[in-house]
């Protein structure tokens, strides 16, 4: 208790020195928090915008354009997998859509609507009309509908490569934000698609999303082991986006290096300030030792100072860093005032960084504390 009180008074008494080091710690930690959260938000934004509205894992037939047998078993296993947040069987096939003189390739994608919504967020993507609600209805993408000059309720003729054609009714228009999808995908009921392509009860794929996108590969491997079926292939977005991932990984490593360097500089700054403090306070420490304070408690004075500097400096740094981040996100907007980066506030990262800063600062106090252990009262109390 006395050591803590002395530590507080030492810091309060050397106010200018304490404030300077606190400002230094606060700036360092604020940069650490800012960089850490910004890079994390940036990565998540990139990933979200890349794979956010698409399946993270797709189970399909090992043969080209073939259906999966016993897909119910796959769905059962998927249901048992805790990490999967949404899934849907899908019957998909190529076709051509005809209107007037135009004949354009399309991909008919049959899903139960709610399940498709869980993966593609299609409900929110519908900007006109409504979801398909009866057999033979489809949702058409923005660019395709504009090119074909289609209105809600129009009927379109779709011809199947193997022969034959069906007439479908457009119930609504969607915009997934990806031109190539808007241009070619027609969403419809699973059984409508199965009927068009004569799949019977079979599907062509089972698609799913996982709660942590970065776990997609391990979840896919886990499913692969459980299903143990050579007739199917399991793809995940990570395997299909290796370049993006290596870019993100590079970013993550550079962010980690910046953070480590910042923490190291905080430790060095605190240790050097407290080491000077040991020299400045050596007569007082000497007399305390003469009065009977033991070495452990004398060294605690410096460890407490490190702890207090770390606690207060990092708290100020957290506030400053978070403030900086919010300002940055607010002031960097893209077209339509939409922020360029979506803020993902990783509480765990912030708390972890805060604790690391406090622990590092406390450990920084160990260096001067060890110095104080060597302080012999005889050497210092005669000096005046």
């Amino acid at each position, binding site marked *: *208790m*006395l050591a803590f*009180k*002395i530590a507080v*008074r*030492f810091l*309060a*008494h050397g106010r200018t020195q304490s404030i300077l080091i606190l400002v230094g710690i606060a700036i360092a930690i604020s940069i650490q928090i800012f960089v850490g959260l910004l890079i994390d938000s940036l990565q998540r934004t990139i990933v979200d915008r890349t794979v956010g509205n698409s399946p993270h894992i797709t189970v399909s037939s090992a043969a080209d354009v073939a259906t999966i047998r016993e897909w119910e078993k796959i769905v059962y296993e998927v249901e048992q997998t805790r990490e999967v947040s949404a899934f849907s069987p899908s019957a998909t096939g190529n076709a051509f859509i005809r209107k007037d003189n135009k004949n354009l390739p399309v991909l008919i994608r049959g899903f139960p609507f709610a399940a498709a919504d869980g993966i593609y967020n299609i409900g929110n993507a519908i900007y006109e009309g409504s979801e398909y609600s009866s057999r033979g209805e489809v949702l058409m993408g923005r660019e395709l509908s504009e090119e074909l000059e289609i209105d809600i309720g129009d009927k379109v003729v779709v011809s199947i490569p193997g022969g034959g054609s069906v007439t479908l009714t457009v119930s609504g228009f969607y915009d997934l934000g990806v031109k190539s999808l808007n241009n070619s995908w027609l969403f419809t009921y699973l059984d409508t698609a199965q009927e068009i392509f004569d799949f019977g009860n079979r599907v062509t794929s089972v698609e799913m999303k996982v709660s942590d996108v970065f776990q997609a590969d391990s979840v896919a491997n886990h499913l692969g082991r459980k299903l143990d079926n050579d007739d199917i292939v399991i793809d995940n977005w990570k395997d299909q986006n290796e370049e993006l991932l290596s870019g993100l990984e590079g970013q993550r490593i550079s962010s980690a290096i910046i953070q480590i360097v910042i923490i190291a500089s905080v430790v060095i700054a605190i240790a050097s300030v407290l080491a000077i403090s040991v020299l400045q306070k050596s*007569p*007082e420490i*000497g*007399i*305390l*030792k*003469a*009065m*009977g*304070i*033991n*070495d*452990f*408690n004398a060294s605690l004075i410096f460890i407490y100072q490190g702890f207090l500097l770390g606690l207060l400096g990092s708290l100020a740094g957290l506030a400053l860093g978070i403030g900086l981040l919010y300002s940055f996100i607010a002031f960097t907007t893209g077209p339509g005032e939409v922020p360029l980066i979506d803020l993902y506030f990783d509480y765990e990262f912030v708390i972890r960084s805060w604790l690391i800063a406090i622990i590092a600062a406390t450990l920084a106090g160990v260096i001067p504390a060890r110095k104080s252990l060597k302080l*012999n*009262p*005889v050497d210092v*109390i*005669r*000096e*005046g």
Partner: protein
Amino acid sequence: MSGIIELTQVNKIYRGGVDLQVLFDINLSFEAGTCNAIMGASGSGKTTLLNIMGTLDFSTSGDVVIDGKPVNNMTKNQLARMRNETIGFVFQFHHLLPEFTALENVLMPHLINRWRPSNEVIRRADELFEMLEITDVKYKLATRMSGGQQQRTAIARALINNPRIILTDEPTGNLDSETTEKICLGFREINQRYGTTFVVVTHDYFVAEHTDRIVEIKDGRIIIDKKSDVQTRNIPPKT
């Protein structure tokens, strides 16, 4: 007859490039409740002797017994506790902690092994402030006091744990003659009131003459050990 401080055949050699022996076969005993002066020129070894008695330094050979306990085999923590409970120090430079008030400085030795001061120790602090005539600086920071007030605060600090022994090294070295006399009288009064044993290292005859016994050291050896000629013992204890 055993004293509260017993030194037997104490030698001190500083090891270095050339070994330097500063104390030679010192045999010395101080009785409890006495007031003693150790005199000698600079470099005579008097401070080293005091530091060995205060367990701040160690003899190279010989036995040191403080308050009946041999200190040679004590651990650092045991020595720290003994210094805290049995010995009070007053140095030439008071080394008050400038971040604390006079009262906080005085209570510090008490708080080294306790969470908070007892009412009894606060009363004792008040009594010491009054006796040393520094009550008006009780709540002042050490930096806002005169040299004499600081030194008297340091004396109160040395006394707060009611130690059996006070060791002082040139306690009046920085003070004018009037303040020096006040300090000397203060020592006598404490000695008489509490029965505290004093060992005062000084090169000032005026200070030494306020004690019962003068031990003079030259080149690490005791050359004179005598009763003091002039004594101011007859200060009536305060009631």
